[in-house]
């Protein structure tokens, strides 16, 4: 394998990791505040559809992005209402959101575009194009550094950079700001927050809203950055992989980046090498495609050591007497 091949695989790793990373950080905000969210998948899917649909109708990818974020926020609002205000079961609410998004997107797509549940292909201003970073062309000829900068770092769409910058931002918010302190506290012991005179409901809704925005960006990136348009079930379990990555990362931002890159790498390898020969044994393509999901199952089954979730996670807060 030469440097170019490696760089191409890594380049595609970065692209494939981006939606996972955004969704993973979305889940991180929500779960750190004590609201479990298995509806990441549904929110991404809804955002993917609405961003592609609006981008296709208006020709503006930015309007599409806004629509995607809006759609995801609406679903977040439903999840918040069910699990914070009405103290419902967070898992059931999440499952409902996933079903809702899966059915609704295809239905509306068929109604609006009549293309079998997909949106028309996006082009031009309807897509996020890659950005060439400064000096990329100039440095291209420099050995090693040049190709790395040109192939790997430069040339991604803006949302990729947004995704990666969200990692340090999330860390800073969580561990260096008042909001972050309170957010982490409300996921660990809401009673402590409540008796300190801070609104538990307010904090949790704020966290769920952030989760909605990040899921919205993730979904929009899928349909308008990674691909050019919406197709049925295009999230393909990425929301659940993001959840697994979140557990793998033990709810910490930098580790979330690493685990999402790992999943991204697996997806990238599966895409590039449809069959690999190992010592005369041909590994079938289906196995390669299944790898990220197998890893998800392994992680969720708890083979990565003890991951302690936020202590108040999944529990609606009821003031005790």
């Amino acid at each position, binding site marked *: 394998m030469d440097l170019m091949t490696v760089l191409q695989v890594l380049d595609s790793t970065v692209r494939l990791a981006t939606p996972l990373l955004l969704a993973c950080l979305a889940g991180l905000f929500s779960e750190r505040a004590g609201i479990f969210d298995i509806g990441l998948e549904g929110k991404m899917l809804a955002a993917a559809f609405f961003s592609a649909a609006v981008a296709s109708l208006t020709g503006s990818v930015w309007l599409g992005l806004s629509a995607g974020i809006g759609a995801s926020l609406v679903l977040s609002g439903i999840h918040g209402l069910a699990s914070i205000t009405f103290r419902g079961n967070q898992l059931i609410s999440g499952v409902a959101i996933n079903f809702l998004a899966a059915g609704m997107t295809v239905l509306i797509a068929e109604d609006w575009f009549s293309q079998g549940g997909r949106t028309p292909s996006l082009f031009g201003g309807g897509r996020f194009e890659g950005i060439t970073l400064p000096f990329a062309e100039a440095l291209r000829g420099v050995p090693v550094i040049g190709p790395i900068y040109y192939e790997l770092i430069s040339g991604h769409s803006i949302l990729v950079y947004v995704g990666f910058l969200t990692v340090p931002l999330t860390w800073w918010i969580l*561990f*260096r*700001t*008042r*909001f*972050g*302190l*309170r957010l*982490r*506290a409300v996921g*660990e*012991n809401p*009673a*402590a*927050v*409540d*008796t*300190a*005179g*801070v609104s538990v409901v307010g904090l949790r809704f704020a966290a769920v809203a952030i989760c909605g925005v990040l899921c919205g960006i993730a979904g929009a990136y899928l349909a308008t950055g990674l691909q050019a348009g919406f197709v049925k079930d295009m999230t393909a379990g990425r929301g659940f992989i993001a959840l697994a990555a979140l557990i793998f990362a033990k709810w910490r931002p930098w580790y979330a980046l690493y685990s999402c890159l790992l999943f991204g790498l697996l997806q990238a390898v599966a895409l590039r090498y449809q069959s690999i020969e190992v010592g005369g044994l041909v590994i079938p393509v289906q196995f390669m495609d299944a790898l990220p999901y197998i890893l998800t199952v392994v992680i969720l089954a708890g083979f990565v050591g003890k991951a302690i979730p936020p*202590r108040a996670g999944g529990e609606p807060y009821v*003031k005790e*007497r």
Partner: protein
Amino acid sequence: MVDVTNGGRPDQAASTAPAIELKGISKAFGPVQANKDIAIRVMPGTIHGIIGENGAGKSTLMSILYGFYKADAGEVFIHGRKTEIPDSQAAISAGIGMVFQHFKLVENFSVLENVILGAEDGPLLRPSLAKARGVLKQLAAEYELNVDPDALIQNLSVGHQQRVEILKSLYRQADILILDEPTGVLTPAEADHLFRILDNLRREGKTIILITHKLREIMEITDTVSVMRRGEMTATVKTAETDPAELAELMVGRKVLLRVDKTHATPGKNVLEVRDLRVKDDKGIVRLKGVDLDVHAGEIVGIAGVSGNGQSELLEVLGGYADGTGQISLNGQSLDLTGKHSDGQSRRARGIAHVPEDRQREGLIMNYFAWENAAFGYHRDPKYQSGLLMNHRAMIEDTERKIEKFDVRPPNAHLTAKNFSGGNQQKIVVAREIERDPDLLLVGQPTRGVDIGAIEFIHQQIVALRDQGKAVLLVSVELDEILSLSDRIVVMFDGEIMGYGPAETADQVGLGCLMAGLGGADTEAMQGWTISDAASAEPVDPSKSLIEAVDEKLHQKEAREARKNG
């Protein structure tokens, strides 16, 4: 820098007004009148005790004061000014701080983070943390409130966690501090330290409200005391002008025997013989390190010790729901410690009855009826069967008989366990176990969360069983209970027996030392006592008080276990 000492102190003109005055506070939850026309005046710079049985309405009253509930009627005056307290934020800004019975701390946060939570100075943490560090240092020096500001809460002992709660309130410049059952979770040494802190706070002009059901604490530290019964305030008196018997009577509404009335024990043959019992818990921590113990017929053996020193594991092995190694024999016949015949069912069949430490999790099924609960564990008894099915009628009649005999209130076998008060729940458990006429009764924390009236009754039942010539093994963290109920006392620390001897010659100080694994002069002064070699006899550092030595020793042990856990 905030002036902590004077920040919340009332000015000269207002100091004649009560720090807190409540007028006509009423609160009902549906048909239950939790508080009825309550009035209290607490003068600044005093400690006011509120005493009452469980469910008397103490906690409801304090929740109203802290903005958790809205009173149906009534007014609150703080330093003479009428104050509305719709939420906790309002209570905090009115200068009220609350230390709850169950701490409201974030376990995996540092002390500093817990202190500033909700009282940060700006959107960024760094300046707030730096400021809190300074203030904490100052408060530590002033009130003996020493805590490592960078320690995680989960690595602190409960005593230190409580200090963090007090620091939280002081950091918010509270000058009225409410403590709800503060000593329930503390060791005797820690409780002493707490009272010293409260004393310091009083001297600095803070007003303290202490909610408790322990008469001794009221007598020891308060200036005035109010008694609550069934949602009403039955009396407010100066502590110096009352005595425990009078307070107990005011609490319960009738004369109560505070001391257990029992004759001298006449121990018979050895019923329970435990040799070299060892238990390792599922985290790999050794909980029992070779325990030897005898319990004779017709005696009550009390195991004293700070909670978490192996007493629970001892009861679990004997009761048949934990495995161990070593030998245990009952009436000369050995018991299986592992395998099929080591479960609770087999233990009961052998004549061991068990009143578990946690009645709500181990003793009862809270959502089941009293008549079901009164048969659990013995539900395979032929008298409860009719053919293939259970004979409900027999179970209900049996329960009704027990309810009458043990004075369970309300006397209704068709209520679910959770609808009884703590004391009556415990009576159901005690009735179930004692009525089986066991050879050995294991009793864990028989009166935790139980009203004074019911305590008296349960104690009488345990003594009556002893007088029938049965063996009783009692585990309790309440030293008073151990001292008054036991014939013989065994002290445990860190999974080992530190010493044992007759109850008559035991004293609080000596037991307190042993409970922290300390030997020394105070323990040797107890006549007829055997002090184990495991109790370290090295002389206590003379610059430290005994209490500090005890505190430190307990601390070392907790730190050891915390390390293993982490």
